[in-house]
């Protein structure tokens, strides 16, 4: 009845008890507050079942922030451990606990922070930028969100029941196979990644069709903002890379569940095949993470330089080149696995080539700034930080693209530093810039600049202090994922890195202060025009926040930077309102997400009756939705007029 779930699953060390306990406490407090203020009805009707891309986007961001907090705690714990665990001292974390931490850290940050914040921003901004009312498939959008959220629950569940995988976020067999890891840890990993992967793939299809089919009249591909081009490319990567992951993880699951011999070390299986396929997905994945950030910067730099983006066409070609090339470099993640010189040479050269289009983009942003009227707002700070950090990260990537060099530093801390420089410099700084930039649009008032800038400096300096030593450590021979080491020469560098982490945490603290100050000063900073930055693209033509239907009348576009053009040529809206056709909210996403969680929980713990229940629930939710007829409604001309003139919700 309880499968392999027993009281054993509740046994943990004191740190895990504390973490699990504080998590339960936090959840309880949130639950009680919502109940006390009687907000469940609102939450369900206006948010959880909403098919409005703006609401879904905000929900993604809320979940991602919680995940970011967890990921940063993991990071802090690792830095703390490595600062102390030298020679005689073994630190405060046992080896197996440490392994779970670095695995969870990777999974959390890549799948739930990286993907989450980007999908959140894309949801918020994309339809507005192309002059659409919503995405192509609003209900599917909601489904994707709940698959994302429920799959992330396992990261937290594993603190209480059982344990998380200790294999590293890439979860290689044979260690991840049935023989060496029969427990639930790897199964948690598998279902977290599988379910969120399906959510991502569905979003990929959704956003792709939105861009190709729902641009407003006049917006040809060559008039799209570069942010939209970046998202188009990202979604192509998502749609074509994620199925590889789905298939690969499914096979690892069957290896563990029904004893197939695909990635096993015996019976003719091939663990190397897993590594090959995983990275065939894994490389496009890192471009999925960073391309939206490139898109964000392409929006921010022109606006705060008061100058149009330099080299639009070359930007588009660079994005296209990155998209295509990202499918033919994946072996650089395993040069050392032994495929030989010819194979390594090919992939090494391809990896070097892919650096070129990225370089083109950076130069284009800098050329945009040249002779512009620069406003050094917080988003611009994040951009300038990105230029330095990401470029260093990128160059170290090119260094490692040489197989001979990589043989020395593969899986060393040099690698860890490289990818943190590009991910944090690129994805995270890009997100912070975009969040600050678009905050007034969706919330209605600007963010506090002073705290924002202080936060930036703590992040910037803290990051360099935390991660630059890792380059040195990597050259000195330190490998990744170590819970203990004996070379005392390394310890000072680890201590410096830990200090850097503390600086970053102070930076996060200032970001929290920034949000509090922003709320406190909201009346003073209220955006009454909808266009606080003198923007160039269509989202700035709506009120802040926009009405739920985005545009009363679909815009018609004649140039790039259409809003800039509209302002210059003094286009005024006509008074001819039309009836607006909108989709209704739906609970199907929530149910599919919940039952997916229940089904996978049953599979993980071998509670087959529960798994069957979950599967039936998913089917029931889909079938019910299939026969629902009441899926949309209309806003009459008069209602639209009333909403527009009152200055919408």
């Amino acid at each position, binding site marked *: 009845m309880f499968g392999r779930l027993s009281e054993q699953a509740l046994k943990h060390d004191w740190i895990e008890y504390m973490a699990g306990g504080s998590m339960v406490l936090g959840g309880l407090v949130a639950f009680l507050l919502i109940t006390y203020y009687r907000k469940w009805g609102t939450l369900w009707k206006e948010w959880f079942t909403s098919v409005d891309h703006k609401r879904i986007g905000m929900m993604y961001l809320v979940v991602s922030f919680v995940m970011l907090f967890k990921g940063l705690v993991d990071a802090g714990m690792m830095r703390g451990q490595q600062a102390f665990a030298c020679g005689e001292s073994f630190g405060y974390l046992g080896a197996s606990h440490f392994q779970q931490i670095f695995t969870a850290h990777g999974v959390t940050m890549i799948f739930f922070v990286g993907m989450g914040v980007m999908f959140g921003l894309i949801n918020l901004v994309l339809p507005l930028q192309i002059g659409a009312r919503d995405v192509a498939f609003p209900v599917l959008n909601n489904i994707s969100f709940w698959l994302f959220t429920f799959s992330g629950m396992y990261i937290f569940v594993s603190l209480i029941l059982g344990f998380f995988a200790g294999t590293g976020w890439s979860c290689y067999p044979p260690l991840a196979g049935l023989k060496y890891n029969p427990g639930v840890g790897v199964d948690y990993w598998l279902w977290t990644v599988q379910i969120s992967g399906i959510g991502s793939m569905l979003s990929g299809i959704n956003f792709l069709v939105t861009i190709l089919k729902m641009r407003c009249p006049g917006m040809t591909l060559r008039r799209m903002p570069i942010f939209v081009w970046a998202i188009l490319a990202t979604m192509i990567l998502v749609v074509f890379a994620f199925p*590889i992951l789905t298939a690969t993880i499914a096979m690892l699951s069957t290896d563990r569940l029904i004893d197939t011999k695909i990635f096993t070390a015996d019976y003719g299986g*091939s663990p*190397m*095949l897993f590594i090959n396929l995983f990275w065939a997905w894994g490389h496009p994945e890192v471009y999925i993470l960073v391309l939206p950030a490139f898109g964000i910067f392409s929006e921010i730099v022109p606006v705060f330089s008061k100058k149009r983006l330099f080299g639009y066409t070359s930007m588009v070609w660079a994005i296209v080149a990155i998209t295509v090339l990202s*499918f*033919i470099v994946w072996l650089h993640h395993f040069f050392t696995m032994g495929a030989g010189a010819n*194979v390594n040479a090919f992939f090494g050269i391809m990896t070097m080539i892919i650096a070129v289009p990225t370089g083109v983009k950076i130069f284009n942003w800098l050329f945009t700034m040249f002779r512009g009227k620069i406003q050094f707002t917080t988003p611009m700070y994040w951009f300038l930080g990105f230029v330095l950090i990401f470029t260093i990260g990128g160059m170290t990537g090119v260094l490692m693209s040489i197989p001979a060099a990589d043989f020395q530093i593969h899986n060393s801390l040099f690698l860890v530093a490289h990818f943190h420089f590009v991910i944090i410099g690129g994805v995270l700084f890009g997100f912070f810039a975009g969040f600050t930039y678009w905050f007034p649009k969706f919330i209605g008032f600007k963010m506090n600049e002073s705290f924002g800038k202080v936060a930036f400096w703590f992040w910037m300096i803290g990051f360099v202090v935390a991660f630059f030593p890792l380059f040195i450590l990597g050259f000195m021979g330190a490998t990744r994922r170590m819970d203990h080491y004996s070379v005392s020469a390394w310890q000072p560098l680890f201590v410096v890195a830990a200090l850097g982490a503390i600086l970053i945490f102070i930076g996060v603290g200032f970001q929290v202060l920034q949000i509090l100050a922003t709320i406190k000063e909201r009346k003073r900073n209220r955006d009454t025009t909808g266009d606080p930055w003198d923007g160039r693209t269509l989202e700035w033509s709506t009120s802040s926040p926009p009405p739920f239907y985005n545009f009363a009348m679909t815009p018609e576009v004649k140039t790039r930077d259409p809003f800039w053009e509209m302002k210059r040529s003094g286009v005024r809206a006509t008074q001819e309102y039309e009836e607006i056709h909108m989709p209704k909210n739906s609970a199907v996403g929530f149910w599919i997400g919940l039952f997916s969680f229940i089904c996978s929980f049953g599979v993980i713990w071998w509670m087959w009756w529960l798994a069957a229940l979950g599967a039936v629930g998913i089917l029931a939710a889909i079938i019910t939705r299939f026969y629902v007829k009441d899926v949309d409604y209309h806003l009459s001309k008069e209602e639209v007029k009333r909403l527009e003139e009152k200055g919408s919700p």
Partner: protein
Amino acid sequence: MDKFHGWTVSTKPLHIGLILSVILILASYRIVTYYHLTNVGLIMGVFALGIVQALLQLVFFMHLGLENRPYWYMITFLFTALIVLIVVGGTIWIMSNLNYHLMP
């Protein structure tokens, strides 16, 4: 009525597609069972027949290639085919090199 719409309601492409597919299936079946292949050329031939049949079905059953501009169906299909070739071909290349270099 444009070509694409014409093919959507018409049954003739289906008849043609069915007959051609049956011919190709029987042909490849016959080649394999009658000749008991070891000849690489025949192997390639059978594989080519499969590809041709797939393309036939894409055109006659699924109406690929008949749309007006922009040719999103064709473009996305070609890109998919490219990725499948890269992933499958790349995997075979990589794994066979690994096998060669790491053989005991």
